[in-house]
């Protein structure tokens, strides 16, 4: 079970929970597990093609997964996944 940190903008769908533990061996599986546990997240996190919504950035242990193996990046039990809006900064 890895840990997913939920930003405030998504917490309505997790009942206010900041930290959620989710099973899964890859980033894709963890996100799928998260959505299965909290279906209200699907519209925000998952695009029509089944991939991650382009407005969401995923960070595994603070590294953008696009710099790793994207959704196929392996996830261990001690790892933490963070999902954040892509729109900020500058």
């Amino acid at each position, binding site marked *: 079970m890895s840990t997913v940190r939920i930003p405030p903008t998504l917490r309505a769908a997790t009942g206010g929970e900041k930290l959620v533990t989710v099973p899964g061996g890859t980033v894709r599986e963890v996100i799928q597990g998260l959505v299965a546990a909290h279906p209200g997240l699907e519209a925000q996190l998952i695009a029509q093609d089944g991939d991650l919504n382009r407005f969401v950035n995923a960070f595994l242990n603070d590294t953008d997964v696009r710099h790793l193996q994207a959704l196929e990046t392996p996830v261990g039990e001690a790892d933490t996944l963070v999902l954040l809006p892509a729109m900020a900064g*500058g």
Partner: protein
Amino acid sequence: MTASTLTTPTRTAPAPTSDAPSTSAASAAAQRITGMACRNCGLAQPLAIAYVCPACFGPLEVTYDYDVIRASLTRDVIASRAPGIWRYLELLPVDAPPARSLPVGSTPLIPVDRLGAALGVDRLWIKDDTRNPSLSFKDRPAAIAAARAVEFGLPALACASTGNLAGATAAAAAAVGLPAYVFIPADLETAKVDHALSYGATVVPIDGTYDDVNRLCLEIADETGWGFININLRPFYAEGSKTLAYEIAESLGWRSPDVIVAPVASGAMFTRVARGFEELADIGLIERRPIRFVGGQAAGCGPVATAFEAGTDVIEPVREPDTIVRSLAIGNPADGRYVVEVARETGGSVESIPDDVTAGAIRDVARLEGIFPETAGGVTLGAVAAARRRGVIRDDDEVVALLTGNGLKTPDARSLGLPDGQGLAPVLKPSLSAFEAWLGSAS
């Protein structure tokens, strides 16, 4: 082109207003500011401290009733107001100017014929935003975000910065009387760190890139209750850059140029300048004419330029930026895809500029025109030359290049590629004979 420098009228101190916007100001604002909407799915939202669409996670933007604005904001009304960004209040997402704010904007539009000739551009203007209060264009969005923070009653301002926003946020916070927390990459130029510190800000260096800083700030923005001006206040902050377009059009006698050239970091400024011209046409202040938009990025951190060249709008992030152009070193630009869209749809381009070209351009504009920009300005002028070679800039085009920060922020950059001490005389003894000996050997 006239021979004189164009500018909006000479700045004087704005008339004082109360700390909180008056009821009538708030009421008038409620007429023209209709709320927020998602740029991606269009979902309407009430005006709030929010930046992400609750339905699709897309970016929220402020929305206006342009019929209301058209009825009240005329050229004469603008001309009757004091210089600065607040002369375009109706097009900005605040109820009223804050009681205390810095004199931001109304920077000059300068004809640069010698530089134009060197770059092969017939009619070249520089929008000289190096001379805003904290020496960069970032004073514009920071002023808007600070004003909104006051209207929302927020206890502090904060930001994630590549450098220029650090100073702008710190200065804006000092002006409105709020504490400031500035998060920066730990290896930022010393001049920029000292600049922010001097305004009394708390500077928080982070051991990582700007994108690491931004990620951290995204995680903490909504937890602290602070107004992170480029995160939870971003829909308001971004609107400040529209004033560049308003001022350019006004300085040109209420018309638009053929080409705008601007640096691209997150892309927020580039896209809002384009929108600014659209808005002016929408409310009838200028004739609607095509404008080609050209962006410039550093070759060592050019994810948007790469996407433009590849013909895609998918921005592949740059993990480790490698460039002297720290102010543009955003590897994961939030508005990158929208920059590509604007450049492509207008017949413009996004150019990738090597650091040695940037340094040379800084020297050229300083030597030929007496204007000393920071590195992003060198990139912009490099982009002018690149777009000219590409054919995006054509014979007889009127081109406006945005120099967005002052060279004193990056004083070492200009000497890249030069021998040490070029142009610097040796230390002379204070005697006439020493001077004459040196002059004889130097000539």
